[in-house]
């Protein structure tokens, strides 16, 4: 992994089209800004983990019908 030190207000470029700005730093959070072409998808990395966690290997035996029944019972929507 490439490691760089930057100050708030500074930025780095990734390729010709993507620029990442360090906007501000608080105690344990960094606010960053990304300038990129619209076709570059930007999302928090947790999304990948969340999707992988949602995958079921055998949907027929995953209790989906039972869950659906419980949701119907609790939710008159």
């Amino acid at each position, binding site marked *: 992994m490439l490691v760089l030190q930057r100050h708030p207000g500074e930025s780095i470029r990734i390729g010709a089209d993507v620029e990442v700005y360090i906007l501000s730093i608080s105690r344990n959070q960094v606010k960053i800004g990304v300038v990129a072409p*619209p*076709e570059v*998808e*930007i*999302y*928090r990395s*947790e*999304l*990948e*983990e*969340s*999707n*992988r*966690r*949602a*995958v*079921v*290997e*055998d*949907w027929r035996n*995953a*209790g*989906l*019908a039972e*869950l*659906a029944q*419980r*949701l119907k019972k*609790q*939710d008159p*929507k």
Partner: protein
Amino acid sequence: MQSWNHVPPESVVTFPEGIPGLAGARKFVILRSEEMEPISVLQAIEDEHVSLPVIPVHAVDGDYRIALSAQDRKTLAVGEGQNPSSLVCLAVLILPGAETPAACNLLAPIVINPASMRGKQVVQINSSYSALQPLEAA
């Protein structure tokens, strides 16, 4: 074991950009059955072990509002003048664990355009929707 080799092409949903975290899976079918309603399953055609349970966002939040960028519309091939309500919005379902209730991801719904049979997971990056919205009382 069911084979997905003979799925009618018109029932295949293509995700041109894939789904984050699910490696190369791009072609899916939606599996429904009466017993699981309103839950359905997004099943990868190429890999029978990749099944993603989903639930319509409006079954979870009747007021759910989705924002699509110009790029999202392009990927989904949304037609000029196509009614946005014709798009199908599904939240990925995270099944209950030993100590966690069933939840769903309202922050990054899967949007399918039935007119083009294209899909995309559309991150609502500046919204306050939860990526882990509990569906049952803990």
